[in-house]
């Protein structure tokens, strides 16, 4: 693995040199990421070269460096990550947009514009994104000049009624606004449908209702406080986000957590994956009125979560990670109880899943519904089970394994059909793969301490990449000289999976939207930040 790492890099560099793109490589902090400085004037065409070269866009964010604004783009090829840095003057912060080349980056660009004030030129879609009406257009909360506590609004936030939705004209086309308040207890988001009869012509999502200012309130935090925050970026991905943030912190500080801590983190991550997938399989079936599956899978999930509570003190495994280690020990009794629970779960799944697979009325609803083609998934940069159900197999655990995954063999299930049924089957198979992983982790669990010493005045910058249950979670952390956070950006996989929903719903009927939405299950909180 190490021999082939970045073996494409020389070719890329010579390709860029040939095109007279000026790049400077800076020594990187750690293995899977290499960093290039580029010039703002080359930014636009750079995207085309990178895309032609087969790089996947994995993230884009910015940072206020006082008189200059710095923009980062993270790309991935063959499990190796490339971090591009570019700076623009704060007085005239303009960059070319990458949206035309990487459509999945659009919302990240709009996010960066609304929060930091970098304008992306020639973007096909320049509307505001996280900014509803809570702060004025010319205020950029992530600028250092903006107070950490925010401005206290004089009056109530005005209703956000003038967002320019796409409009579709034509005879018999009608508009259905749905949300942000829904009839069930789910996260808030607004969906605007254009339909003819029951057929969806166009779907537009308007998110941002759960914007919490995560990036701003991370500023000035200690490493431990940052992990607490990262664990709350998206409640169902708390382990994935805190591990990504912890990895970034540890790489920045040059700390290697003890082996036992790493294995325990992997155990937590796989437990999170299994719990969420179980809940999702039931919920997808319930959305087509098949309540039986919902009840059975809720039962399995509940038992799993109660085990979490008993073993680690939290049902959703929040606050388990610490900088340099983990919080909870795991004794032999607990380990063997996990083994038993895994065996029991496997047995239950063996008897339940055939029931779902063979139910004709369920098949009728799920097969062929909400198809996302391999090409579309790749173009949008989809991640996790959404991508793997459409034949794009990227998995950080397999393609860019970090410790302890380099010592584990993780199966990578893959579906080709890209419909709702494929996303259900993919989840089921990932549960089995994770059960295998849990067994390996417990077999190999090394003895030793749970935590490495964390230096108070750690400094530097680092990136973390973790395969959460929704897909690749990215985190960027930069610490100042006193060990406090200067910039934190968590990139949830939902950034790239939400746009897929609008694509795969096309030509389906309106009443099939809930099941399509559930099968993608993007995180609102994770992308609203």
């Amino acid at each position: 693995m190490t021999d082939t790492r970045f073996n494409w890099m020389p070719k890329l560099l010579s390709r860029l040199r040939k095109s007279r793109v000026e790049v400077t490589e800076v020594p990187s902090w750690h293995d899977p990421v290499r960093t290039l400085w580029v010039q703002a004037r080359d930014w636009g065409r750079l995207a085309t070269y990178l895309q032609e070269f087969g790089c996947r866009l994995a993230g884009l964010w910015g940072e206020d460096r006082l008189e200059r604004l710095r923009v980062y783009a993270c790309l991935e090829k063959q499990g190796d990550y490339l971090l591009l840095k570019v700076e623009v003057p704060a007085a005239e912060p303009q960059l070319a947009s990458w949206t035309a080349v990487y459509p999945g980056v659009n919302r990240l660009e709009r996010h960066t514009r609304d929060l930091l004030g970098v304008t992306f030129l020639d973007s096909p879609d320049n509307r505001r994104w996280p900014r509803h009406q809570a702060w004025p257009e010319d205020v950029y909360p992530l600028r250092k000049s903006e107070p950490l506590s925010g401005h206290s609004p004089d009056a109530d936030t005005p209703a956000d009624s003038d967002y320019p939705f796409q409009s579709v004209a034509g005879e018999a086309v009608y508009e259905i606004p749905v949300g942000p308040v829904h009839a069930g207890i789910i996260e808030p988001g607004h969906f605007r449908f254009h339909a003819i009869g029951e057929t969806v012509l166009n779907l537009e999502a308007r998110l941002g209702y759960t914007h919490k200012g995560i990036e701003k309130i991370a500023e000035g935090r200690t490493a431990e406080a940052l992990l607490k925050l990262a664990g709350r970026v998206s409640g169902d991905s708390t382990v994935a986000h805190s591990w990504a943030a912890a990895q970034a912190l540890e790489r920045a500080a040059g700390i290697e957590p003890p082996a036992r801590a790493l294995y325990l983190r992997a155990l937590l991550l796989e437990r999170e994956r299994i719990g969420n997938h179980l809940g999702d399989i039931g919920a997808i079936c319930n959305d087509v009125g098949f309540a039986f599956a919902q009840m059975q899978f809720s039962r399995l999930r509940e038992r799993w979560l109660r085990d979490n509570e008993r073993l680690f003190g939290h049902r959703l495994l929040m606050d388990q990670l610490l900088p340099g280690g983990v919080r909870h020990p795991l004794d032999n009794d607990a380990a063997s109880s996990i083994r038993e629970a895994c065996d029991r779960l496997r047995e239950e799944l063996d008897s339940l899943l055939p029931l779902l697979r063979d139910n004709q009325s369920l098949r009728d609803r799920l097969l062929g519904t909400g198809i996302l083609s391999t090409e579309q998934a790749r173009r949008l940069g989809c991640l996790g089970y959404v991508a793997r159900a459409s034949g794009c197999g990227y998995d950080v655990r397999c393609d860019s394994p970090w410790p302890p995954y380099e010592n584990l063999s993780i199966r990578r299930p893959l579906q080709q059909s890209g419909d709702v049924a494929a996303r259900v089957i993919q989840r089921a198979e990932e549960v089995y793969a994770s059960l295998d992983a849990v067994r390996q982790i417990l077999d190999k669990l090394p003895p030793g301490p749970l935590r490495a010493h964390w230096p108070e005045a750690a400094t530097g910058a680092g990136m973390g990449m973790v395969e959460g249950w929704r897909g690749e979670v990215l985190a960027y952390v930069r610490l100042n000289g006193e060990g406090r956070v200067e910039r934190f950006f968590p990139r949830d996989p939902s950034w790239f999976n939400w746009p897929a929903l609008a694509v795969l719903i096309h030509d389906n009927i309106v009443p099939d939207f809930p099941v399509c939405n559930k099968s993608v299950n993007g995180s609102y909180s994770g992308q609203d930040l």
Partner: protein
Amino acid sequence: MNPTGWLLALLQTLLFVAAAPLFGAWIKRVKCWLQNRRPPSLLQPYRDLRRLFSKQVVLAEHASVIFRLTPYLVFGAIIMAATVTPFITLDTPTTAIADAIVLTGFFALARFFLALAGMDIGTAFGGMGASREMTVSALAEPAMLMMVFTVSMVASSTNLATVITSIEHQMVMTRPSLWFAALGFLLVIVAETGRIPVDNPSTHLELTMIHEAMILEYSGRHLAMLEWAAQLKLLVYAVLAINIFNPWGIAHSDGLAPLAIATALMAGKLMLFGTLLAAAETVLAKIRLFQVPVFLMLAFTLALGGMLCFIILEAG
């Protein structure tokens, strides 16, 4: 005029209205058992109704008088439908007006106002629900009428009491027409009462709703009446199915003994019917909206088959 007869008719209707939530609770109970869950109390629907009746009504700003009148009209029309449906006894004066076509008319009246109210406040969901409801009913009504005609031909009358008495004296086993009609009617019941696989009464997903989408904006006593009307409609259909296709035991006099026997038998049959419905709802997922016409086409074809059977095999 027979005062006991009228009293009996009144009591029968009251029992009908009062028992409707219980029937819904029974179906829910069986479903819970089949899903390995602990069911709520059989009284839960009554508690829900009491809660809704004691709550304030919230009206949309643009709600017209139609929106406010609809719950009363719908509840009234369904109660009328219950009144003309033979339940426990045939010995009531209402049997004279117990006509299958009148009954269909009452249901159509209720549906008409429900669809109007759905569109009245101008939300997308109300209109969507109304349009779906109309699509479903436009296909369900012919099937329903075809079933009515088939059994009417067997009995040579559209009066339900006459139909029931006539069928009581026949060997249904030897009448394929009635078998076909019964199967068709079962499918119509599922569609007309908004049960799985056509509609899902317990969903919270606005975009998938049919009946619930129309009443999404209702609250307080309005909602209570509409919910109760829906439960009553389900019971009326269940009683119809039972009394037309399996009427044995229905009382013909106002004696206490036959009434008691008829009530007990009806309760037993309803429990069985509810169990069947719950079992079907457990093993089936909701069908895709565009499969509903196919589903109702099947109901129509079955009823038509029943009629053809009668003409070809039985009429002579």
